[in-house]
């Protein structure tokens, strides 16, 4: 198990390094000079040159990259042009909001998808199955930003039940906090729920056809226990790992959701830093996103290996 983890971690370290190179090249090697972006239109060429030197932009590219990645490894992601503050604390300050949103969305997604996936599989080909299929199709096809706007229109503007946006941390009181995070989490969670429902249905169908299920039934285990204990537990393993791999969609969806609902999270920070051409901040947020994404994949891999010895041996 330890060997497996070490190998996976090594691969992922390479992936992270490659990803950081991609981010760096995108930000630096493409047309558009951050120094010009930072100064006013009538800045003199000398001023631009001076600022470029200050930012280290005059050095060779590989040196710039090594300096950046070396600093990043020690937690120094540079300084934001716009906020005139270090990048990492800026991001970490916004991170809990995104985490709150992601956790709530995941909870909502599981709350919908587990019963839906099981029902669809146990009623395969029947009305419930078709209904789940259509709802899941709607869930994967509906743009998260449109769903968010429609929800604001209905629940905030027309019905006036929920606030149209903004954020209240859990420390501000659970009711107020939940009222603010509920709509964004539903908007973000439904697409994820649809994906998980589809995966769970497929793996439930697979598990329900296995011999040990037939044996359990033959032994007189009640059908309810067969489905919710034996089958679901086995079907959840591949589903949850697959769900972990599509967590990236949640991160990307968080950008749109946070913009629509005015949540001060990492996604909105990314959006704002792009609008203000704050390159160190953009780099930092993207790098951190990739890091979280890759880390979750590693955890999912480990979880899978822990639960299924075959994966451990073949890798």
């Amino acid at each position, binding site marked *: 198990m330890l060997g497996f983890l070490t190998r996976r971690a090594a*691969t992922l370290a390479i992936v992270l390094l490659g990803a950081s190179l991609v981010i760096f090249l995108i930000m630096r090697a493409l047309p558009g000079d951050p120094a010009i972006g930072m100064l006013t239109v009538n800045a003199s060429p000398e001023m631009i040159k001076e600022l470029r030197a200050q930012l280290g932009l005059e050095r060779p590219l590989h040196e710039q990259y090594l300096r950046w990645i070396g600093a990043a490894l020690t937690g120094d992601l540079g300084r934001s042009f716009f906020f005139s503050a270090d990048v990492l604390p800026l991001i970490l300050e916004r991170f809990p909001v995104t985490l709150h949103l992601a956790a709530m969305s995941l909870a909502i997604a599981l709350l919908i998808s587990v019963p839906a996936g099981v029902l669809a599989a146990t009623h395969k080909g029947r009305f419930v199955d078709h209904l789940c299929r259509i709802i899941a*199709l709607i869930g994967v*096809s509906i743009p998260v930003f*449109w769903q968010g706007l429609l929800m604001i229109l209905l629940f905030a503007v027309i019905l006036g039940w929920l606030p149209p946006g903004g954020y209240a941390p859990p420390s501000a009181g659970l009711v107020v906090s939940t009222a603010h995070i509920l709509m964004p989490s539903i908007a973000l969670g439904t697409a994820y729920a649809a994906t998980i429902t*589809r995966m769970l249905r497929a793996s439930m169908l697979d598990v329900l056809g296995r011999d040990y299920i037939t044996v359990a039934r033959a032994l007189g285990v009640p059908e309810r226990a067969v489905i919710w204990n034996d089958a679901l537990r086995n079907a959840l393993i591949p589903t949850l790992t697959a769900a972990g791999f599509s967590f990236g969609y949640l*991160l990307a*969806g968080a950008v749109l959701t946070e913009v629509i609902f005015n949540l001060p999270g990492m996604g909105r920070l990314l959006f704002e830093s*792009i609008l203000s051409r704050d390159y160190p901040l953009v780099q930092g947020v*993207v790098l951190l996103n*990739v890091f979280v994404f890759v880390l979750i994949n590693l955890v999912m891999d480990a979880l899978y290996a822990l639960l299924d010895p075959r994966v451990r041996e073949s890798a």
Partner: protein
Amino acid sequence: MSTPATLIGVDPSAGKRRRLGRVLLRDPLALLAFLFVLLLVAIAFFPEFFASLSPIRPSRNRLQEPSLTNLMGTDQFGRDIWARCVHATRVSLSVGLTTVAFALLLGVPLGAIAGFRSPSLIDAAIMRVMDVLMAFPPVILAIAVVAALGANDVEWGPITIPHVTKLMLVIGLLNVPKVARIVRAAVLVERNEQYVLAERAIGASELRIVFRDILRNCISPVVVYATLLVATAILSEAALSFLGLGIQPPQPSWGGMLADSRTYVMSGQWWLTVFPGLLIFLTVCAFNLAGDLLRDLLDPAQITGRGDA
């Protein structure tokens, strides 16, 4: 020498045509999706036929509710929303289709080479690069690239790359790894088939074996995935346009129209929000359904078998 089916005197396309008819009849939703895609293509080619009003010229009828003259109402500049939706169809569809074409153009050969040569250094090299690309949460990288390039046309020496093309390249590139993985997995299975041995025995070149024979038999999962990818690509473009990084105003785009509508949600002007989003939703839905339909069609084992997803 081609597919095994022709060797035993069966025309596989005839069977597929019959099955297409049956699946369409059995599944009215799929039929609707099919017709909707046809309608979208018609709209993309002849927008003037479907909407006579200008999608760009402002008028005095600002923020009018839907009526007989303005089926979907008008926006903050008095432009007809139906006309704008219609004229945005072409750009959304072309971004969707070109993106997928680009992803296939790179992903299929890369996946085929990696699969055929697996395990080897080139396989490992290709797949690690794919892993790096896969490490990016999809829309995030697109946002970063488009942000770095700016939302204008890019000039590299004598070459001018229009912003729309840039969008297509970026979204396409992000999807290359998934295509490559699917093709690689399929090639890994196919290369051990009898007909490959037979090809080798009669001295066919490897290039011919891979690109003429093996790939032909790997086409179904690729076609299914490509169809689903059109849906994802259209969604990505809409998301980028919504964030102001995609299609630039005054050119109409569904995502851009939704971004404009944000200001008017709170004052209850619902038609600005509802209609452009509905079009994105229906289009994405139609391509997703088409993908599911193709999967049933190309892999009949999944219709009757239990591996149905």
